[in-house]
């Protein structure tokens, strides 16, 4: 518990926590406002007007969450990699191990703190997204009637829970990659390459890629076959998993990533 609290304190003070969240909210706001402003122009083509769905409630709730899972997935992999990699780069893991700390416990509790921070960040981004979507709806002159749709609001906790698990899985992937790389920069680089590699692979191996971590994470809250608003180009081009099936795949990736990170740390020769 001491390590969890200390890790949380470290993350709260870490500039990366705020920078990443700020960029995510900034991009989300920019896109929602831009879409609302252009789609509401008189004489806008039908395809452009379809963009108004992003600021039309209650569907906007899922759209915002899908966006957070899509682009936020990239940020989560960077965040997980930055935190895990810096422990090796700065030698702070070395200091903890030399004090007799359990390597596995240190890694798992550090990740638990990351997972909590990701959850808090996701809620803040989601809240900010709703506020911006309301503003966008006002700009576009779209009704905000669905904002208080009881049925949708009733499903939000489950959607947010699934979304949190999905984004934590992607964070765990970054955590594992940086642990294997033993480096902050290499971990971030490899995480980004994984993200774009997976998006690129959808064009050739869509039946396999749907089981990959980023696609599975997107499918957790998406309507089957829709692909969601991933921000990464998934869209309706590829088939995606059923949400519950995707949830199982996400859990498998999450557990696998943490297992790899923990086992590697346990057996690693720590130097530098």
């Amino acid at each position, binding site marked *: 518990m*001491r*390590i969890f*609290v*200390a890790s949380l*304190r*470290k993350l709260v*003070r*870490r*500039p990366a926590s705020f920078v990443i969240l700020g960029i995510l909210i900034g991009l989300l706001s920019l896109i929602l406002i831009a879409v609302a402003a252009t789609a509401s122009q008189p004489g806008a083509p039908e395809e452009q007007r379809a963009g108004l769905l992003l600021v039309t409630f209650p569907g906007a709730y899922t759209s915002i969450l899908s966006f957070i899972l899509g682009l936020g997935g990239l940020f989560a992999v960077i965040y997980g990699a930055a935190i895990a990699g*810096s422990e090796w780069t*700065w*030698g*702070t893991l*070395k*200091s*903890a*191990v*030399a*004090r*007799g*700390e*359990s390597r596995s416990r*240190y890694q798992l509790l550090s990740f638990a703190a990351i997972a909590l921070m990701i959850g808090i960040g996701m809620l803040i981004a989601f809240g900010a997204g709703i506020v911006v979507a309301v503003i966008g709806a006002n700009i576009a002159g779209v009704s905000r009637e669905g904002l208080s749709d009881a049925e949708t609001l009733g499903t939000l906790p489950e959607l947010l829970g699934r979304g949190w698990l999905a984004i934590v899985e992607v964070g765990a992937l970054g955590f594992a990659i940086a642990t294997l790389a033993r480096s902050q920069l290499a971990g971030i680089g490899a995480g980004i390459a994984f993200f774009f590699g997976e998006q690129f692979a959808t064009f050739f191996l869509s039946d396999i890629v749907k089981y990959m971590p980023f696609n599975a994470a997107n499918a957790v809250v998406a309507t089957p076959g829709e692909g969601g608003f991933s921000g990464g180009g998934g869209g309706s081009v590829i088939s995606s998993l059923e949400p519950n099936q995707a949830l199982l795949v996400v859990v498998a990736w999450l557990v696998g990533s943490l297992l790899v990170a923990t086992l590697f740390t346990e057996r690693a*020769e*720590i*130097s*530098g």
Partner: protein
Amino acid sequence: MAPDRRASRGYSSGVTIDGLALATRGLVKRYGARPALAGLDLSVPSGVVYGFLGPNGAGKTTTMRLLTGLIHPDAGSIEVLGRPFGRGDRHRLFEVGALIESPSFYPYLSGLENLRALAATGAPTPRGRIEELLELVGLRERARDKLQTYSLGMKQRLGIAAALLGDPKLLLLDEPANGLDPAGIVAMRETLRHLASTGKTVFVSSHVLGEVQQLADVIGIIASGRLVREGPIEQLLQGEGEVRVRVAADEVEPARLALASLAPDGGVTASGDDDGWLTVRIETARAAEVNRTLAEAGIYASGLEAGSDLESLFLELTRGDGSGSHEGTFFGVAGGTR
């Protein structure tokens, strides 16, 4: 030097050692095909300052990493505070404090926050201990400043504070004087001596031989991954040392003959560079005798250097160590006249 200090400790030649704070037996560690340690046998008595010396690449840092469980040996055994220390014995490190290589901290946190983060790992740290240590290492005023604003010496002092967090019985310090200013070095030396006087064991790896000579009770010298000498420092330095003296180039031979009475059996050698330097193998404390002997022979020295005794011993013992950079050349520049 302070021989009285060690005498009062009752640690001198032939004295039996009640217990060892740290011991390694046949410790072997390889990196690929290259052996970093080739059967290291260390015996570190309790309650002393132990100076661990060796040329670059001799295996000092590898030893430190093995002693703190960061890496694991390919063969051999380690005993920490009288009990075996293997892969599953991390709890033994609860009584050990370590500063290995450079101090490792989070740059975006303050010194205080860094110590708090570290205190959350390993053995529980008593309340008030962090503030006490910040005071001890002279960082109380800067405790709330971010680490990235600290100088190298301040980071080193924070590293020493971090090593002392758990009030360890055994302290392992790798080059603790790195980056410290002269006042900081003196303060560190006094702190380490004080810790040893309270029964704690301080294991210091260092390149600064003069510093080790002033600080350590016992030294171990490692070369090519093996211990080549170990024991109480005054015992090892008996008969060691050399004095270098410079005379006019045409007086080298008469000077050598005159000084032969002080160091017989080839104990006087000329540098061979016609620069007038002679090396006399006697204790450095007898440097004045060298000068007097030359004067009595009507030869006047234009230069006199009393080398460190430990330095002489170190160079003699590690001369064959191919891993070291002290011998022959240093960054491609020809070495000294030794």
